[in-house]
């Protein structure tokens, strides 16, 4: 595979790390030095195990970014698409870091060193930090970096040279004549695609492209499978053609009020008392103007408490938003008439007084007035027409 990318998040900053390629190899056996006096034992059990080698572009600019990438990659292949057991102790996931430094602003790459076999995220980060410091130290002293392979010593927190890396080992590649080129037909790829649950990474991409969500929102939704699934089920229960912006609204609602209530009660999203479909319906009622945003909160509480259906709650409690301009005009008139001081304040330049008038209308209508219309009507009336 060529191309592709992985998105990471470091201290709130998002970054895309590009992948150069990924290919399949077979693993080597193990050399064992302990329990053999003067000898090395060779265990070939591991020889031939399939290995996916994933090579990134040198896109990372700090040890933290590298560790973040490794964590994201690990999560992707272990939890998300489940192709690896990810047991770093047992050696199922190993990283080699290629580190170089260059003067800030420069375009050319410095000489790099490879730190091999890092099998913990913490060691990865520390090893890279040490190595960067080491290389900077050498260059600042006027020296040159020798291209070599190094190992990280966790006890001493330093990297040590393993052997001098000769000019790209002349690995001879040629098409293996014992194996026929394996055809990965489009049909097979489709079968694989449909048999695997869509990866969170793929969902993230799709939410941005299909639903127009921001990268930030998409990342949050795909940070865990249950969030993504709740969101999707909600969106699929609505008609996006009727409500073009509803995906974003559902996302915000899911990540905002639903997540916070779920967290308060120690619940997974999949276990909250509101189904994705009911949630979708509620957001539709806001989108189509049936209820205002503030009333929606009340409805949500009722739903959470056990009254499932938004429509019956609205009907039972008479929560429909008042959108009839005639009615709203009457309420506005009433408030204007009963709040002469505020009116005067507003007319003499105090903006805050306006909000208070709006608030009065809302209070009068028990929150059911359509706030945008109220604002518009009041403004019109107070400007003297």
């Amino acid at each position, binding site marked *: 595979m060529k191309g592709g990318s992985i998105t990471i998040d470091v201290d709130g900053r998002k970054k895309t790390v590009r992948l150069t390629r990924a290919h399949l190899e077979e693993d080597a056996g193990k050399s064992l030095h302990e329990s053999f006096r003067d000898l090395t034992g060779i265990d070939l059990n591991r020889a031939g195990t399939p290995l996916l080698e994933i090579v990134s572009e040198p896109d990372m600019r700090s040890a933290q970014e590298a560790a973040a990438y490794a964590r994201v990659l690990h999560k992707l292949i272990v939890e998300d698409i489940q192709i690896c057991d990810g047991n770093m102790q047992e050696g199922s996931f190993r990283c080699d870091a290629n580190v170089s430094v260059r003067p800030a602003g420069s375009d050319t790459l410095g000489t790099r060193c490879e730190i091999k076999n890092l099998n913990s995220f913490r060691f990865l980060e520390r090893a890279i930090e040490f190595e960067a410091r080491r290389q900077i130290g050498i260059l600042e002293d006027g020296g040159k970096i020798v291209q070599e392979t190094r190992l990280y010593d966790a006890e001493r927190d330093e990297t040590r040279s393993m052997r001098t890396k000769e000019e790209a080992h*002349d690995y001879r590649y040629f098409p293996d004549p014992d194996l026929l080129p394996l055809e990965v037909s489009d049909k097979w790829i489709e079968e694989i695609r449909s048999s695997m649950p869509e990866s969170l990474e793929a969902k993230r991409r799709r939410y941005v492209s299909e639903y127009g969500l921001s990268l930030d929102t998409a990342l949050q939704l795909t940070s865990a499978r249950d969030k993504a699934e709740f969101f999707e089920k909600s969106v699929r229960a609505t008609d996006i053609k009727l409500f073009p912006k509803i995906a974003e609204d559902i996302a915000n609602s899911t990540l905002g009020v639903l997540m916070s209530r779920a967290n308060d009660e120690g619940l997974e999203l999949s276990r909250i008392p509101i189904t994705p479909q009911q949630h979708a319906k509620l957001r539709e009622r806001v989108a189509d103007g049936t209820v205002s945003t503030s009333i929606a909160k009340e409805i949500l509480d009722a739903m959470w408490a056990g009254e499932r259906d938004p429509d019956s709650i609205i009907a039972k409690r008479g929560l429909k938003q008042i959108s009839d301009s005639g009615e709203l005009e009457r309420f506005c008139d009433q408030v204007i008439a009963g709040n002469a001081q505020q009116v005067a304040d507003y007319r003499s330049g105090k903006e805050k007084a306006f909000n208070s008038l709006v608030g009065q209308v809302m209070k009068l209508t028990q929150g059911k007035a359509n706030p945008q219309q109220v604002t518009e009507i009041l403004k019109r009336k107070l400007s003297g027409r």
Partner: protein
Amino acid sequence: MHNATLKSLSASLSARAFSSVELTRHFVNRINQLNPKYNCFITLDPERSLKQAEAADRMRSAGRGQPLTGIPIAQKDIFCAQGWLTTCGSKILSNFTSPYDAHVVERLNAAGAVTLGKTNMDEFAMGSSSETSYYGPVRNPWDVDKVPGGSSGGSAAAVAARLAPSAIGTDTGGSIRQPAALSGICGLKPTYGVVSRYGMIAFASSLDQGGPLGRSAEDLALLLNVMAGFDPRDSTSLEREWEDYTRELGKAVKGLKIGLPEEFFAKGAAPDVVRAVETAVGEFRKLGCETVEVGLPNMKLSVPVYYVLAPAEASSNLARYDGVRYGYRAPEYADLPDMYKKSRAQGFGPEVKRRILIGTYVLSHGYYDAYYIQAQRVRRLIARDFAEVFKRCDVIMGPTSPTTAFRIGEKMGDPVQMYLNDIYTTPANLAGLPGLSIPCGFDGKGLPVGLQMIGNYFGEAKMLGIAHQFQQATDWHQRMPPGIQ
């Protein structure tokens, strides 16, 4: 008994004229007597062979006899056989007893055949004379000062000297056909993919094919019936419906179009060879065949292409021989890298080393495009030439080898001279086409000349049928080396 064809031996066993044990013992005795003279066999195990013969006799008694049941077969020491020393003609495997059977050996065993012994060969199948073997050269039964051809020389000589009714070998650049020609017997290289390579020690994976050697086309067909077939353990093995390779033996050849490539008859072949082959072609005309002149313009590049691709693949296939897990390990060394170096330096012969070096070179950075990739391109052109030719004819004929058997030691000093022996045989390997060699005459010194047929893909049955018709009308294939009774 030892002059009978496989076909007639099979019939005799069926008719209980004698038992497999008797038959096998007969050959075992002959081998004891005559093998020192020709050095055809590396490993013999009469006790084991006889046990197999007993089992074969029981198989027949139980009514489960097949055409090959009880037939002793000499097996080139390149086929892994469980419990047998399998050396590939090399010091580096001189202590390797195979823990498993090659697919072909499994099939032969299942058919009830008897393993007569492991035959001598050029080391790792690299050679055209069977002189590079760690176990000494094989001698041509027609003239013991001459080579029998290679690399399946031991198998060919065993059949020629009547030490085995038939044998199996491998052909990468001509290693079945050329020794068959030089030893006056028949040999077939099937279409690539027809015979499984699992257990056949690899030389050049995209060129190697196992195949039968025997004294008649019919015998080859009977053997191929057992050898051929799909094996999931070999990714290059083809899954096809089973074929009876004897089905066209009786078919008349009248009207057959024989292509005669001008490149096969240009200068380079010895005049005696050309004469014998032309006489044979005349026989075919008498049988009602037409001949048509054809051209294989890229054929002249076959040898260089072969000697780039085959060593490249060999350098990779032979990388596993390092003295660690099996095989020869140098007795003294300073450290691990030294052990590798010494084991391989001491374990491999000069021709093998030569080819590993060439192969490594043509694959190395900077030369890969100029040599390896280029050779692959030309390989495709060579295959395309054949495709064009087969639009105009049914089968191609020509000499198998440019010369008859040469003196032992004559060409060992000049590897390129040796490589030029393969000029007519390598094209079929490069294109993956089936090739057959049958005896068609002698030179002025009484040495055999081989007629080569190259057929289109999966044309084995057709070619064997054509050869059979020739062998009904002539008797070259029945001649015996002087001194053999």
